[in-house]
């Protein structure tokens, strides 16, 4: 009987997430009446609750572990909290964005519970705290709307300070210095620096848009990249670079920046591959993982074994071997989703992330105030590029960069900052969007 339930649940979950994904694009492509949209969003909420319930209940049925029910309860609690905060405080915000946060965070919780219950519990606590903090953002925006654009030196100094702190006091893991331990809690300051850096660029460009300013911003970026390169955190360096190029392109409207940037990335990758051992290892692993399966290629081989063996429908929760992939709950959580929930679900997750990214850009577009438009755009680029890097690394489209999946992967700093980004986007949106689009 348990077997019947677990299998039925597996196929139902696939059907539910497909429905959800289709709906999240329908909203884009058709101009529905407000009331139609509202029904659609309510349906999505039901789909999220059903999807997660089936997942958590089939895990409980399979393992007979009551603790999963506790995590299930709290996950639903945090998701309900997200819904309440965004519906009550962020009135007239984007409900679709809120739903996407819920399903991405929820799917992450589902897989984390499967992989490591202790990590899942910590993730829940940080999630709840983050949502609590972000509840005050609209109030802050209302009060201090004009102050944020003036603090460009604060952003710069704090960012540089945090980066240097990582470089000097950071712990090395998997070849890169990323985290700093404060009072026993390991935090990753770079996550916060990403956000500060976006604010810095927007503030600088808001003041003036001269060549001198572009070069000044570029110089600061190069300095940041050098510090990150010294800490061997190439994934973050790449993200900062892309944010700089994207935002500068949007502000200065020079298309030539895009191919130039692509060229620089390729040259830098070849150079880094030659000079930095830990990068060349990742490139070897990317080119032919099976040839170095005992060594550099082990992680990506296991990831592809998982995705390939799980195939379209997935092995079912607890029936695959995602734990054979090193750091699966962080850099390779997408592989765990694909292995056990199936590639169809994984593709839906990509599409939901794409839908989220489109929302970022679309909401940025609707903002009249250029400072907030550029911050939103920068956050969109940051989010979208991280998703691309992490999934591309899991499926071997690009070399693995050690970047985590925002909202889905385990990691407190990343979760807090990502929730903050989403909340900022919503609060900018509700306070500064053009009147006609309301």
């Amino acid at each position, binding site marked *: 009987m348990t077997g019947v339930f677990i299998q039925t649940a597996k196929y139902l979950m696939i059907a539910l997430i497909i429905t959800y994904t289709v709906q999240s694009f329908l909203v884009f492509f058709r101009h529905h009446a407000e009331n139609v949209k509202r029904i659609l969003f309510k349906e999505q909420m039901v789909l999220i609750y059903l999807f997660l319930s089936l997942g958590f209940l089939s895990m409980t049925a399979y393992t007979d572990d009551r603790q999963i029910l506790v995590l299930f309860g709290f996950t639903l609690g945090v998701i309900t909290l997200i819904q309440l905060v965004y519906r009550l405080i962020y009135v007239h915000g984007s409900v679709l964005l809120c739903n996407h946060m819920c399903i991405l965070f929820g799917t992450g919780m589902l897989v984390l519970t499967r992989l490591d219950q202790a990590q899942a519990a910590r993730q829940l606590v940080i999630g709840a705290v983050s949502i609590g903090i972000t509840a005050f953002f609209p109030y802050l925006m209302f009060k201090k709307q004009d102050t944020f654009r003036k603090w460009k030196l604060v952003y710069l100094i704090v960012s540089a300070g945090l980066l240097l702190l990582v470089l000097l006091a950071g712990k090395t893991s998997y070849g890169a210095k990323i985290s700093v331990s404060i009072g026993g809690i390991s935090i990753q300051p770079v996550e916060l620096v990403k956000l500060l850096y976006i604010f810095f660029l927007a503030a600088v460009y808001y003041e003036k848009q001269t060549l001198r300013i572009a070069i000044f911003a570029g110089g600061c970026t190069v300095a940041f990249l050098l510090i990150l390169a010294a800490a061997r955190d190439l994934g973050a360096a790449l993200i900062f670079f892309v944010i700089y190029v994207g935002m500068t392109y*949007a502000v200065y409207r020079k*298309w030539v920046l*895009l191919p130039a940037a692509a060229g620089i990335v390729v040259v830098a990758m070849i150079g880094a591959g030659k000079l930095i051992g830990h990068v060349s290892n990742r490139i070897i692993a990317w080119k032919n993982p099976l040839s170095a399966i005992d060594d550099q290629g082990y992680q990506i081989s296991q990831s592809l074994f998982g*995705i390939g*063996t799980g195939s379209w429908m997935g092995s079912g929760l607890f029936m695959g071997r995602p734990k054979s992939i090193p750091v699966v709950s962080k850099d390779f959580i997408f592989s765990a989703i694909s292995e056990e929930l199936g590639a169809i679900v994984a593709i839906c997750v990509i599409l939901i992330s794409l839908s989220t990214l489109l929302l970022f850009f679309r909401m940025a577009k609707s903002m009249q105030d250029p400072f907030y438009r550029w911050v939103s755009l920068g956050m969109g680029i940051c989010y979208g590029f991280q998703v691309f890097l992490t999934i591309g690394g899991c*499926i071997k489209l690009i070399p693995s960069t050690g970047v985590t999946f925002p909202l889905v992967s385990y990691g407190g700093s990343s979760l807090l900052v990502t929730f903050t980004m989403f909340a900022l986007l919503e609060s900018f949106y509700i306070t500064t969007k053009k009147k006609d689009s309301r």
Partner: protein
Amino acid sequence: MKFWKFPKKKYQQKELSVLTILFAAAFLALIVYLVVFLAFESESFINNPYNKRIDALSEKTIRGSIYANDGTVLAYSTNDEVTNEEHRIYPYANLYAHVVGFPVNGKMGVESVTNFELLHSHSNVGERLKHAFTGEKNIGDGIVTTLDPTVQDAAYQALGNYRGAIVVLEVSTGRILGMVSKPDFDPNYISETFSILAEDNESATLLNRATQGRYAPGSTFKLLTTLEYIHENPKDYEDYRYTCTGKFRSDGKEIHCFHNKAHGDEDLVDSFTNSCNTSFASLGLTLDTKELTQICNKALFNQKVPFDLPTEKSYFTLASDASDAEIMETVIGQGKTLATPLQMTLITAAVDRSGKAPRPYVIDRVVNDEGRFVKSLATEGTISVMSAEDASLLKAYMRDVVTDGTGRALNTDAYTAYGKTGTAEYNAAGDSHAWFIGFANQPGKEDIAIAVIMEGAGSGSSFAAPAAKTVFDSYYLK
């Protein structure tokens, strides 16, 4: 400054659209790459011994069967309803031991190479859906091999109690009809016997000698020596004359003919058909070692032979400054040269096929539990081993061996046989391995090629050639 002048228009709508399109394209690339990987590449990628997930598939699937080319079941699994334990059964016990192999203890043979297919099911979709809910196991796909039970049985009998190997393949396609290696073992009891067998390096029972056994080729190597001589003397090789006294001496090294027999006056064909060592040692000293090495490399020495099962590389070396002694030994197939039976089979197949050896394969196709075709695993193709002229010349020489020389055991009206015997000494006492390589044809039937190696049996003509005849008879006279 003009280039960097900030545009007057306030909203960067176009730039946002460009960024949106770029990112959307990148995300779609992710999806396309994932779909392509799953649809086309994942099966071969995940079929890797490092992928422990494959073994987990056996919890959902009863391992499929392995068949001979006529549908004879060579391996199948039974599932105990009560304990849910699977048993792997090999009805022919030792007969197919090395080629079919086993799926445990590091795996071997067809069982190892097709592990993934055997644990995947393409059975009736409705059945599979039902099983998904009831938790019953699906029946894995079957593997149809190219093995011919009649040929395999004959080869097994022909090898008798000798250690060694026999490889038989269909010349036009490269399908392996028979592959025997001895000493052998009973795969039904491999779990119990594996540790003993694996440690016994003296008899090396688990080694598939047909593909991984490396032997001095003995006189069978004279095919290539003959070719090189003809290449260097294209006009007058037919005028070659030699008087054999049973012995030949140079550089302090003495070469003997078998049993010191004096073959008397010979031309090149006689030397070849009599397998006259002294004649070849003498003509070998005139040869260009570099050219000979090239001929050997083309004939699959020092190269990986493409095949479904693991193979060893054959080995040939002859430096340009090699001593006379070394050259004399090498040209008669002694010395450092080592050949595998599979490679020697391919050389003879090439002689029969205008110089082009077929790419050998033993795994033909995947079928579901009802025998319906799922996909082909046959790897057809050819390997160029020698020119068509060379092949037709050697073909005539190999025919003479059967009609007038050391291969007379195979002279019959029932089919036309071609061959070359070999007697490879492997110790100072003069004990020798018996070799035979050759092929045969009969109108209306496929040509088949064979390599026989019988360790320590004695001369090729009195042991290996009759063994080859047994196999040819089984194929052409049934």
